[in-house]
């Protein structure tokens, strides 16, 4: 007597996104916390020290948030105009920020009032940073200059006027106190050495540079500008290493994650992309509600902080093992020893072995199918789909297919009341346009219409569902027609492009098409 073969739930591979380690890792964040700021958030900087508070620069303030607080733990409001680039010193004690009014202010993190103010720029200062030893400040301004300041006596040390456009980004070397990089809207990146009073390296990005990033080893420099992210090899004298074009709007912010294993870029196109730094391929992608201006990643990827043009600060915290554990523990399960009871018993020689037949475990709908209770099996499958979320459509579909194969689908669908019929119809509406299920569901829909044709008009609920189904079908046919039109157009293009490959064509039409094909 062969045992009953359970219904095979066919799980089709999902097209498109492939589940990798990275997607699992980057999806392991909780739902974002959203905080409304007064204006566009231009800069986010994490404190290098333990609690890892972060400074958020928006409008005329710099807020400091604790790692888990939803309210700012500290606010610096002494700006006359829009503040820019609030940055911590490497010891986390001091914070510097530029301002639209050309002044640069230095704050003690525990205090409230600016302890130093550096005046000398003539236009807005978008860049401010500490040098590696912490006694000097680098600033870059819209007056095309960048300056080095001495903190103790708040005096200007040097001024470099080599750029020919706004300086919008800069970064200091963490290993050498004399080196720093600036990026400007004149499309260039420059490496300055404070010891020689001029730039020692010059790189052409090709687009207005928006953001700069140094690898921890400081052998590679990453620049963002326009739609491009470019990586430069500093040890080879500033040779371009890779050029990434994965955004379709200006890239505004860069950031390193996973101890330098991953590179993140944020853009005005509302996406944050994660690249692997070994092969520079996009491994994950985050979507946000608005254009992103600034991006920050806490050490060990504990949280992702994103500032957007509409003033919303979005903070995603990493899901900890305890969070997921808590959910599981709510369901009480039998103790482990119940399952292993007697399993490790070694039979002795005098023992008489009685073999117990292995019980076959069947799902409820399979049990019903075995007994040919077709209607109940279908109900059960619909019920199950509400429990197993990940096989929501697959299980009912498998059962429907099985019923269709047995030729009893009609019997299973017949004799339903208003509520059950609505449930069936809504299932059809939900999955009909899924190409994996269309063939089976059209048969099912036809059967439903055949059976319940006479009852149309008797129930408003059912009628509404039927109208929805009709709408859906209309939309789908329209959509298919459009697709066919596009296909036809493409065919014409291909047909016209193909045989004339050798013949040089006057006009740009063909060339442009070829170019697009290459892209």
């Amino acid at each position, binding site marked *: 007597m062969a045992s009953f073969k359970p*219904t095979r739930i066919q799980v089709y591979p999902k097209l498109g996104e492939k589940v990798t380690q990275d997607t699992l890792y980057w999806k392991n964040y909780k739902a974002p916390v959203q905080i409304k700021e007064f204006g566009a958030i231009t800069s986010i900087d994490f404190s290098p020290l333990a609690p890892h508070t972060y400074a958020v620069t928006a409008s005329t303030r710099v807020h400091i948030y604790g790692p888990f607080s939803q309210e700012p733990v500290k606010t610096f409001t002494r700006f006359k105009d829009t503040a820019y680039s609030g940055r911590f010193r490497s010891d986390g004690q001091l914070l510097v920020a530029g301002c639209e009014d050309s002044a640069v202010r230095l704050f003690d993190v525990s205090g409230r009032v600016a302890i130093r103010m550096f005046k000398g720029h003539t236009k807005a200062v978008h860049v401010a940073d500490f040098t590696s030893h912490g006694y000097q400040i680098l600033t870059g301004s819209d007056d095309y200059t960048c300056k080095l300041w001495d903190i103790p006596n708040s005096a200007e040390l040097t001024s470099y006027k080599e750029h020919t456009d706004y300086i919008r980004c800069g970064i200091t070397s963490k290993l050498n106190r004399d080196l720093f990089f600036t990026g400007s809207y004149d499309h260039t990146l420059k490496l300055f050495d404070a010891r020689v009073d001029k730039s020692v390296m010059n790189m052409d990005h090709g687009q207005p540079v928006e953001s700069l990033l140094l690898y921890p080893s400081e052998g590679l420099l990453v620049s963002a500008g326009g739609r491009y992210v470019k990586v430069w090899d500093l040890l080879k004298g500033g040779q371009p290493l890779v050029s990434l074009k994965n955004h379709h709007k200006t890239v505004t912010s860069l950031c390193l994650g996973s101890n330098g294993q991953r590179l993140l870029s944020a853009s005005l196109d509302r996406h944050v992309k994660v690249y692997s730094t070994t092969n520079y391929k996009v491994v994950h992608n985050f979507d946000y509600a608005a254009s992103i201006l600034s991006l920050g990643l806490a050490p060990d990827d504990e949280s992702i902080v994103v500032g957007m043009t509409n003033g919303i600060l979005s903070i995603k915290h990493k899901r900890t093992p305890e969070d997921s554990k808590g959910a599981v523990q709510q369901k009480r399960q039998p103790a482990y020893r119940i399952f292993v009871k007697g399993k490790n018993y070694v039979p002795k020689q005098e023992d008489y072995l009685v073999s117990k037949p292995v019980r076959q475990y069947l799902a409820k709908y399979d049990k019903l199918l075995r007994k040919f209770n077709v209607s109940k099996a279908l109900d059960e499958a619909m019920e199950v789909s509400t429990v197993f979320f990940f096989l929501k459509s697959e299980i009912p579909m498998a059962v429907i297919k*099985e019923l269709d*194969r047995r030729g009893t689908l009609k019997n299973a669908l017949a004799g339903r009341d208003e509520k059950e019929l609505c449930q069936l119809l809504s299932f059809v509406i939900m999955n009909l346009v899924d190409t994996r299920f269309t063939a089976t569901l059209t048969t099912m829909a036809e059967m439903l219409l055949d059976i319940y044709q006479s009852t149309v008009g008797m129930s408003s609920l059912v009628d509404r569902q039927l109208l929805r189904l009709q709408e859906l079908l209309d939309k789908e046919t329209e959509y298919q027609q459009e697709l066919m039109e596009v296909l036809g157009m493409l065919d014409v293009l291909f047909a016209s492009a193909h045989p004339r490959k050798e013949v040089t064509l006057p006009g740009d039409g063909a060339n442009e098409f070829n170019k697009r094909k290459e892209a």
Partner: protein
Amino acid sequence: MVAHADTRVVHRGGSKINFRAPVITQDSRFLICVSGECIKVFSTSTEECIHHLQGHKELVTGLVLNPSNHLQVFSCSEDGTIRLWDFTDGILIRVTLLRILSMHVSAKGDVFLVMPVKRNKKEKFGLVSLNLPPSVEQHVMVKGHTIVFQSVSTDPKCIAFGQGGEYVASVKDNVLHVYFLNKKTFYRFALGTSGEMAARNAFTCVACHPKDDCIATGHGDGKIRLWRNFNQEKEYTFSTVHWHHSGVNALCFTPEGTNLLSGGLESVLVQWRYGQEGQKDFLPRLGSSIKEIVVSPDGSLFCTSHTDNKITVIKNCTKVSAVIQGLVHGDGVKTALMVDPRTKALVLNGKPGHLQFYSLQRDQQLYNLDIVQQEYINQSNLDQFEVVKAALDSRGSWLATVEQRSAKEVEISLKLWAFDEHTQSFVLNTTISAPHDGPISEICFSPSSQNSTTLVSVSLDGHFKAWQLTQPDPSDDEEASWSCDFVGDYHSLEPKCCCFSADGSLLAVSFKEVVTVWSPASWDLLTTLSQPPGAIQDLCFGRLSCSKYLLGATDKNLCCWNLLTCSLEWSTALDVSLLLADPLSENVAAFCGAEKTTDLFVFRPSEPRPHFSQQALCTGRVTRAVFAPRDEPLDGCEESSQWLNRSQLYFLTHNMELLTFLTKPEEERLMALSKQVPTIDDSVAMTPFYLLLGKHRKRVPCNDEADDSRLWGESWNFGVPNLAPGNHVMSSCVSSMCLLRDEEQPTEVEMESEKEEEDSEEEGASVPPRPEHESSDTGAKLGPVLTKAEHRELRGVKKLDYSWIRGLVTSNPVVNTTKQMVKTPKQRVKTPKPMAKTPKPMVKTPKPMVKTTKPMVETTNP
């Protein structure tokens, strides 16, 4: 029918064992069933075939236990003989000559036969009572017989004898006839014949209660009627029970009459309590529709025979204890015939949704592979998934199957199975649903075996697709899986067949009249060949030295192209239905459909002249055939049979009969084998495993030689299905053990052969011929070892021995089994060893194939 004296077409294996109801012996130890022209005796406990009772010349049509001697069985056949057999020894006892369709024996021992009776110039089948003369002669001619019923159904299920043979019941169409043999009275009961129900109302089977006056009849609509008071014309009564949703195929009472068993299409054995028909037990999912039900005389075993050529033995009403499975023919073989390179088994579709592996040497099914993996619903008019195509790669490590269901739209899925060394079976690797838009007409693997294998599927949707095993990234923990590598078409014509050259460097795909040749390395179209008129029906590359030839068969012509010159070498007018290349030689077999029969031509592509041809091979077209490589090449010297030296040709006829060619030397060898008097141990069937373990279990531990243990190790290392055929294992293993014991002690084996020799000298009776070298071998070691006690014992045995032959002559079938047990080991030593030599390594295809590609590339760009 036989054109050549040294080869003839024979049935070999795969015969129907479910043609007639099997017979269970009195002691429930053996099951006897018909199998084509011979009768097979199986053990009910081990499922092993113990005897082939050979003697009938035509299909065996009936089998009944002799009521007067439970160690004998009657059989009748289309050749007009009734034979009486002693099934424990497999000896023919008596032959009677008549033309018979089926046969019954009443409890009193009278023999009844269903045979043609002439009446009003129309030939009808009648039930005839027969008096077998009590004769001791081996051949008996029967003269007198009396006709009981003028017209009966040809199905033996429609006749039953009741209550100690007092009456006989026969059903035909809508009428039940009862005839009381003693009173010679005759009653007729008819069911309504008008209206819609009439056709479904028809009787299908009948059974009589063994103790009570009750007749149970099964009907086409699934009802069972229980008839009582049928010895009166008017006041008869019947009650109806109904569970089966389609016709009742088989009915049977248990010997005590307490239960009634019924079965039908649902493949559920239903057990009704006699007297309380409301209570019933079920034994569901027996595999396929039940054809016959038989109960052993003591009631402990039930036995159902099924339409898929299977006999199930059910113990204690509840448990399936053994399954004897023959070759499943089903409604038709949809896949091509293949030979599994690992097990040398024939592979074809078997049970619905399964692929069967059938060992031709052992005439036994090795295992079934579940392809569809769905519950089979036993219901007529239901579109089920069927395995329609299957292909094995050259090393047997990959299996590709296509399953298809043609409901409203064609649902196809292509599955690829990897052979798992660990479990010794095929494991599903990749499922491709809807690989093509239309039905797949052919699939084939490329023969190049360096890790990378390509599968090509050809579909009626106008495309052919190449599938390749893709190795995943080492970073992902996924397995290797198959994916589409190339989609090809040619002027949107429908492709029909595809074929790879022997070295895998060329792929030929036929599109209507055109053969396209592709390079699988780059998927470039190299050249096209065409010889109109007529669409290409079959394609095949030459092998070995003929690998430069491509053969194509159209409706009317057989064409041979030379691939070096890309031109037609020769063509001939032949209506070829199947082209088949022998993988081990240059030979190509072409089956040609003549009017109603099929002719076979065997030729080499290099010369357009067949070196073997046989007209009128069989009736109907042959569409499936296979060359099965032999274990060891024959050294037949006859020119016309040389093509059979390396492989054996098996083919399926229109009626799904498996036929093959048998050469003279082979036949002689088989005859020599069958002449030996078969012996069995009465208690346990003689299986290879029994020989290995049961008999020598006690001795194995004492001669703990490394050599010995190695032997055991070897025989257990591979999985059961992959064991060498029983006779190989048996002979080699047992002889090696005997040799071992030779060295240690003067063994029984030698002594027995000694006795045997003395016997033959003294009595001069006919002893089966024995190979010379064996006897001299054992004889040399004889002599000094016999003690006095042993001499005495030996004499005792001598007296016993051969008494059974005398018994046979005096038609006294009582057999002393003990002495046969003594003889067993000797017998096994004597069997000639069909050594399991590995076939010779395949000669590599000569290089020219590679060269051929070049000129063809030139031809494509003139």
